[in-house]
């Protein structure tokens, strides 16, 4: 089985969010970069678990990013994965990124393409669906469990207010969320091995860019909390009803 895991580089969850150049660029000053948590904890670790169950499985990682993403992809390789592919381009929009990933997927003939449920920076949750459509494959979103018997996958996915079990034949695209796998920490052997695992760089294919960010902004600051004394709970209820009109 061949598995392709999509890896994105994102600012750390606790990074300060600020913008420069007239609010057109994310301020990278002092920002710690991480593997997008959903890509790492759920998609990549699930791929590793599948390979542990079937050692003949091959895991490739793909990222669509300039060279500054290499420390992140090396970190991903330290967790697991036999080889990484970096498509050497700025990421532009989700359609452009999905087009690059779909091209890598076509070349590699993968049985399973895994993504996280969304990136924590752009929150688009659209790459998996777009890649699936470009490849004419089924796409199971927000998967929490994945089991394989031959080429038949049994997948549990979140639906509003519950969950649903799907059966689908490989190949397919899947976005993973909490429950899919347990987060792991790279060990020393993995870190050493990652240095020698191939990281191939390939140039992008021509693809359109359908959307572009004009500018960013920060939400208006809250007016500040109005504290009510613990002895006057009914006053809080009155404020919520009359002032905030919250119920």
């Amino acid at each position, binding site marked *: 089985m061949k598995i392709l895991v999509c890896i994105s580089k994102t600012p750390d969850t606790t990074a300060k969010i600020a913008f420069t150049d007239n609010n057109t660029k994310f301020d990278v000053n002092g920002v710690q970069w991480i593997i997008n948590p959903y890509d790492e904890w759920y998609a990549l670790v699930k791929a590793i678990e599948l390979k542990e169950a079937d050692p003949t499985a091959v895991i490739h990682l793909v990222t669509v990013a300039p060279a500054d993403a290499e420390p992140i992809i090396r970190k991903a390789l330290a967790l697991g994965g036999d080889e990484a592919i970096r498509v050497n381009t700025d990421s532009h929009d989700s359609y452009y990124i999905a087009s690059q990933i779909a091209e890598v997927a076509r070349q590699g003939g993968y049985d399973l393409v895994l993504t996280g449920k969304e990136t924590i920076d752009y929150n688009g949750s659209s790459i998996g669906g777009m890649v699936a459509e470009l490849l004419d494959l089924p796409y199971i979103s927000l998967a929490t469990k994945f089991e394989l018997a031959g080429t038949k996958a049994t997948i549990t996915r979140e639906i509003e207010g519950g969950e649903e079990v799907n059966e689908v034949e490989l190949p397919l695209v899947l976005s993973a969320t909490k429950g899919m796998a347990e987060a792991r920490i790279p060990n020393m052997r993995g870190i050493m091995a990652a240095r020698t695992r191939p990281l191939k760089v390939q140039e992008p294919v021509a693809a359109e860019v359908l959307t572009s960010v004009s500018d960013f902004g920060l939400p208006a600051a809250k007016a500040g909390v*109005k504290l009510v004394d613990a002895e006057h709970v009914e006053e809080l209820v009155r404020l919520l009803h009359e002032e905030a009109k919250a119920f």
Partner: protein
Amino acid sequence: MSVLIFIDTAEGHVKKASLEALTYGAKAAGLLGTTAEAVVLGTVQDDLAALGKYGVKKIHHVNNESLNHQDAQVFANVIAQVAGATGASLVVFSNNLSGKAIAPRLSVRMKAGLVSGAVALPDTSNGFMVKKNVFSGKAFANVSVNTAIRIITLNTNACQALAGDGTAEVVPFTAAVEAGKVKVTGVSKASGEILLTEAEIVVSAGRGMKGPENWGIVEELAKSLHAATACSRPVADAHWRPHNEHVGQTGFAIAPNLYIAIGISGAIQHLAGVNRSKVIVVINKDPEAPFFKAADYGIVGDAFDIVPKMTAAIKKLKGIA
């Protein structure tokens, strides 16, 4: 030309999020000088014509039983046929699980630029620009769409459903429906409860509750407000509460009108899932809890003392004995 809105259903009933999408789509149609039309797939129990009160003029109903299960690949194909037939220049989805699964596929199929998680109407003064949340609600971006056909998924509670007068014309649409590749073999749903992702009011509790046996007062408060219950990640991880109640970065992102957080410190990962709530109330015994910085109202004190008093005060106000 039209704005086409996707009406999302569950067991034949129109979801609340779709009423917001219809209102948004009708307003967008006004801005674009065109009419709002909608598409619904599969068997529907509700009165579709009545949805005209949200501003939609015409509803294309693909009444085909094989569409009662939502297969995103099949749905994207059918919606593309309807969008083509109606000459849609904008397709609107809710940014819920259906929208997240179908809209990206439709974007590829129609080569239509997608803005996911929109929080405002498009700005058409210079091209076509839509505001969306980024960085898990910590910032927003204005996204320009550079294609003739555009797709928007609308965040829940970003546009209040507005009912006026009007009746929609419901017309059958015959589409070519392919066989789906995904077989649904089981569905489990919490029944009879208020759906967390659709709730106007959410009462949420964290580790400060000390144990699952203490959730009674949280549920009582939720009941008095007709609210859904939620919890923080440590609570779900400890199996004090079911996973489908977990809100935050790794759980559900919600945006109710009122969010009451009890015994939750307010870590940045938790805030990422709830910071779009209109009014946030924090009850915590630690005055230094970071959540107070993100709150509109707060009480520093013991939840076991405050929460029952709150329930009593609400019942009194509502005239419930």
